[in-house]
């Protein structure tokens, strides 16, 4: 299954690369830190420092862009040697939780000002993500993986470095509802990246 995702990612990148011809396109690569919330925070209390996103957007007009994105997030938390209790059971073991999230989203971006040195924007990503939530307990590993709906509103600003290159700073919230045994997933993220344009 993983190879299918990777093939899809590579195909998307190639397609995006090949289609940069007709209109103005904005390409962005960003890196961020993510901070888990709610039940996902109980499963993974640590912040995530492996969050990459690549996206390509086509400019519909000066204020509105649409496109797609691929993102990869990894979270891990080492609980150490802990004792956990359930109904009539108790388990003591070194316990590590981790998850990989590979997200594919359609992106809508609304620029709040006309093109300039600093352009604030609102962005909404809607799509699906494949997540693999895993738990290592002593010698054992248990986990679940599958697809989840994903919603990712963001706000940020693009600061022009030169005509076709900009620095992007953004903050957002990601939510993936419970699905197929996967815990509901939610996290805030702060990201920084580069955005370059092609006319």
């Amino acid at each position, binding site marked *: 299954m993983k190879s299918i995702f990777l093939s899809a990612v590579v195909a998307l*990148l190639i397609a995006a690369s090949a289609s940069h011809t007709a209109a103005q396109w904005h390409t962005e690569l960003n890196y961020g830190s993510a901070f888990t919330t709610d039940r996902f925070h*109980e499963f993974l209390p640590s912040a995530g420092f492996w969050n990459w996103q690549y996206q390509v957007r086509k400019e519909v007009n000066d204020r509105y862009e649409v496109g797609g994105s691929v993102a990869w997030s990894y979270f891990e938390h080492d609980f150490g040697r802990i*004792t956990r209790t*359930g109904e009539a*059971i108790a388990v*003591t073991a070194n316990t590590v939780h981790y998850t990989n999230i590979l997200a594919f989203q359609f992106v809508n971006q609304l620029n709040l000002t006309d093109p300039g040195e600093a352009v604030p924007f609102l962005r909404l990503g809607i799509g699906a993500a494949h997540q693999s939530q895993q738990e290592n307990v002593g*010698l054992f590993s*248990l986990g679940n993986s599958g697809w989840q709906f994903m919603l990712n509103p963001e706000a940020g600003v693009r600061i022009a470095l030169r005509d076709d290159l900009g620095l992007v700073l953004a903050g957002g919230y990601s939510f993936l509802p419970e699905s197929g*045994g996967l815990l509901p997933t939610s996290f805030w993220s702060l990201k920084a990246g580069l955005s370059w344009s*092609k006319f």
Partner: protein
Amino acid sequence: MLLSRIVYVIFASALLAFSGCSPSENEFVDDFDLVFTSYDTNYSYSGKRTFFLPDSVVIIGPAEDNAEVHRFDAVILDALTRNMIGLGWEKLDPEDGVTADLVMLPMVTTTDFSSCVMPCWECGWGYWGGWGAWGDPWGPGWGWGYPPVMGCSSFSTGSLYVTLSDPNNVNEISEEIPVVWTGILNGFLLGSDAGMVNRLESNLSQMFAQSPYLKTQP
């Protein structure tokens, strides 16, 4: 244009290279030790104060005729006795013609893994009912298995099962002696004998520390 292509290559390569991160491997053998206990919530220990313990550990499986695997029997039996007495129990000898309230049975199984294997954990463990800590238990989709880093290697694992049964409460219809408490210690069978003794003693102590309901009632 060049920058774009470089970024494509870097990003695609990273995805292909990592294809999903995983935690770093544990450093020491005892990092993998696991202590599991469960008990019959309907069973009352009120008035129970005595127990039998055999003079050797039962070995289950292909290693049962191997005298080498019995070299830790004394450590196991001493630790079990010490912990039970610490909780207020009295150990009796069946040869004295007396009857004990409970019978404690320690059993060991070992499993060797080599090359690339896909262990069948459900065969020896059974489905885990679920954790309470996160609200909902894991759904049926959650399955047991070794972490991926252990997929291709050669190692031995062992489990020490300790059960407490009530011989005075036999189900006459099913002809079963009810097991009222189970403790399992699981880990790698690696390291020096001194290291194994330390791990057995500390983990057996943990087995009783996480079973406070075994403490005898005044």
